[in-house]
């Protein structure tokens, strides 16, 4: 009783309180634990326990060397199901699954080290029946106890579980990434792919995920992204049917999710899938959730996301909420991307409509030009024959002409407009004296304004520097502004001035006309805007004039402004920068590539004159005073206009015209037939026939024709030798620069745009024919030269100093395989093998210095990649000033020569080799005989000994008291036989040694084997080798050299004998085998029971100088191989199943008809 009381006191002292843990602790009989009865506890332990039990923070005490666990109420949740067994249990058992992690952390403080601390320790623990991902903040500190052996009684663990916080933080991070990084997605697919990429970076929460997008027809779902699993595997089918028609079980019940629009959880994945995507842990996820991805259309899902559930986390509300958020975020992303996509499609559709409109505009303008040409051309011609015209007819013709020109102006304006619209206007800026040019342009209106009673003041003082303008455009600006001013001014005058204003030039066109109302002013530069009810000389107008001018001004980097007051007048100010810095450098002084839309001043003036009352206009005869405006007038070269007159008449040249429009054909014919013979054709097909029929000097062809168009005709003409060089002028209504370039690229000599004037046509035709004449003359000379070059067997190639190929003859094609079109324009380095790449710079350098390179032997590469030996001579090409501008090279194929040289060399080597081999074979044979000397001696000795013995015996038979003549005779017969035998042996040896030429004879291979064995058997006997022969009796004969084959076999026997030397007595066995091989060949094998060789050496055995013997040259097998291979056979070695090696060779059977 007394003891109990004492114990109770202690219990009361240290185990009092402590909530439920205290209760449990009190109920334990501690004497049965490693800690012992409570009354034996050290004061420190008691103090620690009462401190621990009373503490509200999770605390754990590991006491004693076994780390017996004692913990408080707050620590219980951390243990889960491990409570209450954990109490009094060693930590090693309690936390067995993480003991390897904990041990060093606990040991350190317990063994006197510092307290351990970890901010976030990730532990995989099993406390609720499954392994769980957990995170803790821990602090383990030593508890000093004087009574403990080392002064430390245990370790106090302060533990704070932070799993929820860590997991939540991670999920927040994921969602943030998802929100921020998918924003840039441009399509739903991309959005899914990006989302999948992000999800795959968070495998702990999303071990795997599949993003299925639902097709527009709602029948199928397509895999748009996958994380943690490759797309298209069993677990991640690319396509999932949603209509449920397909009978087989779907991996994921997407259809259910789509129908119900609600999430589903799938468990027991391992039963569902042969291979569950593994995830980051050692166990794959066992469940997954399917979340609907909503779209911005109600009740319609954009897709379904499948999310694997971590095998290390409990699928609780937080986890489900997280999955909801992921699905929501993906939905938002997809919706955004879809919206973006649709926006983009709309914009593209609009742009497409715009493009179509512009194209239509451009086409329509071009279409106008063809009939215009047909109208203006004849009219112009008629007017030129002025004297023959009746006055009234002439007037009417002038009317037609004028209106034709006016229409041309409109069409050109439209064309300008459509070019600007399509961004295809290519201004050509040249420096001009703007004041002078403008003064000149304005001057064209002087007589007109004066006739209308208006004053024209032109004030253009010189500018300090030239302005860079496109002349045609500047003309249009000035003429349009002037005719505009004229149109609206009935009294007063028009002032045109150009002044420098800082770094700008300013053109001012001011009138005293009717003015523009204030509310109209902001609109006048708008396209198609016309001022309603404005009072002017005419109502004509398209409403694009000012708009076009504004565009033209902008193309000069300038600006246009207007000031106006009704009834007071209007002032337009155009400001353009001086200098060229503001302009694109490549357009300055560039060649004009577009058909000109320029019109002469007369066109404007004529048109404006029509606005005047008829009496004023006609009485002054304005129209007739100006030359007929044709594009020719703009030609900078007056000589072109003169060609017609300087033409030499005889002989008449032939021109072939192809056009499907009969009016057009007539027009061509009329213009050209007075000078040339004109053949007409209605399409390309017909024209080609005509050309072949009678070769024209020139072909003029419309591009747009039925059957074969102009390009096709051009192609056909160029494809025929006869017509290849006939110049071709293509005619088209399409004025675009692309059309022109295309025509020229396809090999047209010139390109004419409708409308064109008769004069322009004549000029072009004349010039082209003149060129042809000159070219023909030059070509005649060049042709002779070219024929020489072409017919040369050598490759003749020229190149420029950059190594670009300029010409290529037939010889070059033969030598290198490239045709001329393939080679010309290519770098010559394409012929040079990479390893010789440094030759070309050296050659080029010498050529630049004007040196020649002669008969340089090198290697070049053909088109097919093969190499060719060539001899190369390269000479510089000089221009007329003696400068080196390129190089011509003559390459000769020296492959054949090289081959012959090589063959000679090889032959010499082969002969030497053969001699060496024969010598070697003889030496080896001698060595073989040496090896076998005792054996051979034995073979000689044996019969000799017999001879001597028989002779002695014979003597004795004779010397007896009664000589036995019969026995004596018998003895003599034996002597003769043995003597012969001895000499036969000697003969064979001599033959074996002497032999040096190869003699092929029909042989029974078994005889050869036996002969070899005969030489060797004494040797084998001496070495205590048992010999066995398994020779097949029915072998076909072989053809070969007996001695050589014997040598091979002997060699194999000697090798075998040597290989067996280390083997114990009684176990040396040599088997000689002959048998049929592969149908009609024979195989001879020599099998020993020796030491064998290393398997890796087996193939090297037959290599010269390879030997496994301690002495030996390593030549024997090498020579054997060359002998056998020379006999058409093969020799190789195989390791036996048992000990030893078999070396065998095959020989083909002798053919039935030995040659």
């Amino acid at each position: 009783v007394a003891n109990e009381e004492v114990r109770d006191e202690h219990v009361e002292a240290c185990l009092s309180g402590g909530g439920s843990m205290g209760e449990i602790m009190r109920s334990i009989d501690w004497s049965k634990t490693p800690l012992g009865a409570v009354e034996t506890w050290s004061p420190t332990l008691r103090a620690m326990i009462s401190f621990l039990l009373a503490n509200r923070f999770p605390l754990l005490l590991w006491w004693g060397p076994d780390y017996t666990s004692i913990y408080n109420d707050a620590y219980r949740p951390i243990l889960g199901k491990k409570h209450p067994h954990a109490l009094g249990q060693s930590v090693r058992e309690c936390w067995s699954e993480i003991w390897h992690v904990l041990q060093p952390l606990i040991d350190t403080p317990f063994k006197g080290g510092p307290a351990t601390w970890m901010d976030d320790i990730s532990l995989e623990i099993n406390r609720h029946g499954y392994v769980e991902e957990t995170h803790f903040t821990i602090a383990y500190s030593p508890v000093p106890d004087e009574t403990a052996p080392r002064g430390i009684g245990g370790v106090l663990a302060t533990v704070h579980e932070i799993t929820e916080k860590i997991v939540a933080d991670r999920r927040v991070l994921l969602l943030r990434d998802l929100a921020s990084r998918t924003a840039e997605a441009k399509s739903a697919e991309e959005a899914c792919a990006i989302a999948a990429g992000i999800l795959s970076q968070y495998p702990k929460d999303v071990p795997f995920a599949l993003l299925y997008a639902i097709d527009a027809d709602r029948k199928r779902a397509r895999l748009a992204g996958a994380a943690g699993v490759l797309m298209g595997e069993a677990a991640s089918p690319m396509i999932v049917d949603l209509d449920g028609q397909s009978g087989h079980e779907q991996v994921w019940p997407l259809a259910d999710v789509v129908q119900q629009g609600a999430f589903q959880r799938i468990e027991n994945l391992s039963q569902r899938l042969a291979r569950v995507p593994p995830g980051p842990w050692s166990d794959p996820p066992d469940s997954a959730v399917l979340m609907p991805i909503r779209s911005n259309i109600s009740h319609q899902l954009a897709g379904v996301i499948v999310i694997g559930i971590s095998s290390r986390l409990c699928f609780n509300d937080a986890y489900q909420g997280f999955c909801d958020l992921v699905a929501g975020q993906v939905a938002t992303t997809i919706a955004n991307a879809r919206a973006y996509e649709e926006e983009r499609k709309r914009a593209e559709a609009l742009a497409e409509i715009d493009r179509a409109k512009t194209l239509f505009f451009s086409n329509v303008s071009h279409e106008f030009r063809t009939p215009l040409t047909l109208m203006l051309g004849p009219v112009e011609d008629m007017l030129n024959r002025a004297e023959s015209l009746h006055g009234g007819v002439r007037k009417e013709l002038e009317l037609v002409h004028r209106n034709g020109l006016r229409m041309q102006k409109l069409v050109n304006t439209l064309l300008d407009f459509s070019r600007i619209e399509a961004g295809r206007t290519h201004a050509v800026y040249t420096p001009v004296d703007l004041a002078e040019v403008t003064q000149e342009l304005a001057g064209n209106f002087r007589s007109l304004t004066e006739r209308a009673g208006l004053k024209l003041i032109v004030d253009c003082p010189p500018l300090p520097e030239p302005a860079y303008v496109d002349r045609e455009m500047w003309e249009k600006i000035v003429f349009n502004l002037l005719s505009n001013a004229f149109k609206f001014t009935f009294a007063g005058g028009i002032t045109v001035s150009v002044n420098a204003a800082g770094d700008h030039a300013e053109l001012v066109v001011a009138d005293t006309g009717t003015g523009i109302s204030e509310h109209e002013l902001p609109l006048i530069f708008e396209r198609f805007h016309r001022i309603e009810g404005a009072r002017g000389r005419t109502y004509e107008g398209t409403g694009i004039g000012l708009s076009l001018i504004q565009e033209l001004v902008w193309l000069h980097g300038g600006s246009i402004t207007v000031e106006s007051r009704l009834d007071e007048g209007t002032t337009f100010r155009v400001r353009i920068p001086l200098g060229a810095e503001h302009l694109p450098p490549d357009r300055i002084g560039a060649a004009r590539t577009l058909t000109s839309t320029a019109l002469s001043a007369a066109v404007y003036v004529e048109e404006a004159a029509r606005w005047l009352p008829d009496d004023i206009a006609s009485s002054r005869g304005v129209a007739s005073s100006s030359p007929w405006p044709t594009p020719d007038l703009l030609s900078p070269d007056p000589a072109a206009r003169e060609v017609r007159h300087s033409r030499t008449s005889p002989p008449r040249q032939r021109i072939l015209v192809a056009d499907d429009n009969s009016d057009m054909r007539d027009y061509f014919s009329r213009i050209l037939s007075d000078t040339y013979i004109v053949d007409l054709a209605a399409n390309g097909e017909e024209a080609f026939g005509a050309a072949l029929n009678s070769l024209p000097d020139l072909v003029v062809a419309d591009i747009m024709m039925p059957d074969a168009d102009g390009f096709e005709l051009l192609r056909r003409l160029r494809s025929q030798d006869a017509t290849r060089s006939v110049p071709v002028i293509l005619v088209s209504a399409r004025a675009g620069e692309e059309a022109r370039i295309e025509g020229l690229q396809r090999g047209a000599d010139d390109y004419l745009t409708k409308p064109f004037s008769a004069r322009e046509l004549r000029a072009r035709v004349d010039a082209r024919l003149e060129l042809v004449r000159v070219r023909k003359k030059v070509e005649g000379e060049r042709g002779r030269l070219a024929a020489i070059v072409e017919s040369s067997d050598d490759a003749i190639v020229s190149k420029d100093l950059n190594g670009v190929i300029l010409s290529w003859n037939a010889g070059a094609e033969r030598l290198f395989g490239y045709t001329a079109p393939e080679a010309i324009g290519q770098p010559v380095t394409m012929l040079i093998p990479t390893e010789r790449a440094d030759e070309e710079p050296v050659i080029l350098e010498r050529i630049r210095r004007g040196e020649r390179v002669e008969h340089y032997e090198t290697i070049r590469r053909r088109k097919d990649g093969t190499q060719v030996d060539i001899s190369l001579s390269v000479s510089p090409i000089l221009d007329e000033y003696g400068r080196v501008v390129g190089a011509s090279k003559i390459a000769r194929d020296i492959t054949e020569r090289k081959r012959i040289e090589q063959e000679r060399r090889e032959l010499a080597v082969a002969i030497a080799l053969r001699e060496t081999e024969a010598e070697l074979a003889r030496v080896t044979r001698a060595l073989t005989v040496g090896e076998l000397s005792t054996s051979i001696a034995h073979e000689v000795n044996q019969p000799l000994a017999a001879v001597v013995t028989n002779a002695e015996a014979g003597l004795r038979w004779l010397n007896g008291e009664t000589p036995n003549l019969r026995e004596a005779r018998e003895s003599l017969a034996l002597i003769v036989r043995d003597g012969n035998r001895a000499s036969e042996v000697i003969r064979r040896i001599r033959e074996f040694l002497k032999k040096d030429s190869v003699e092929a004879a029909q042989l029974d291979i078994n005889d050869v084997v036996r002969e070899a064995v005969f030489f060797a058997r004494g040797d084998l006997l001496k070495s205590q080798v048992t010999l066995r022969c398994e020779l097949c009796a029915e072998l076909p004969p072989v053809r070969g050299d007996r001695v050589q084959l014997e040598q091979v076999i002997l060699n194999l026997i000697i090798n075998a004998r040597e290989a067996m030397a280390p083997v114990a007595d009684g176990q040396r066995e040599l088997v000689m085998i002959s048998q049929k091989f592969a149908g009609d060949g024979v195989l001879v094998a020599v099998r020993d029971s020796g030491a064998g060789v290393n398997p890796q050496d087996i193939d090297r055995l037959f290599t010269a100088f390879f030997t496994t013997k301690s002495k030996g040259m390593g030549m024997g097998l090498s020579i054997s191989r060359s002998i056998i291979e020379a006999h058409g056979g093969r020799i190789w070695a195989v390791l036996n199943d048992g000990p030893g090696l078999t070396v065998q060779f095959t020989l083909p059977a002798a053919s039935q008809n030995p040659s």
Partner: protein
Amino acid sequence: MSEERPTIFVVDDDASMREALKNLLRSVGLEVQTFSSAQEFLSSERSKAAGCLVLDVRLPGLSGLDLQRELAQANVQIPIVFITAHGDIQMSVRAIKAGAVEFLTKPFRDQDLLDAVRQAIDRDRASRVQQAEMAVLRERYESLSPREQEVMTRVVRGLLNKQIAGELGISEATVKMHRGQLMHKMGAGSLAGLIEISQKLLPAKSRRAPQ
């Protein structure tokens, strides 16, 4: 002990050599049996007449030296004349040590071979005579009673009758009786004769000098 003509066994793998040897040996009136290998010789029915073995050293399968060893192990005592085409000293030393009569190198002088054979035959004859004597003596010894054998052993060791009686625990008179019996049975006329017989007969261990 027959007076048959001695037989010479020739073992040589070379047919010429076999024939030549047979010819030579026959020419001096010897019976000859030839064998082409050691195995053939071992498995053959051989005549019991005195003779010798003319043996080629180098033979396929069992070599001549191997055969010599085999015969010794089987306690077949037949003198051997070795012949070889190319003997070396080591080999001949081995052969002679193992009891060969002669070691001849081919080609040999016929007289040398014949001498060697003659010597071998003589040796065989002598050994056969000796073996016959021994058989008689052994038979006689076997006819002694155990007690007589015990007494003989001690007599030969030179013990006196009194001493023998003491050792065997019998009376001197009985010793004397046994002694007389055994002298008679062994055919020994004197003590010296008995000692001579016992030396021929007794195994080495019982022949240890009395000391």
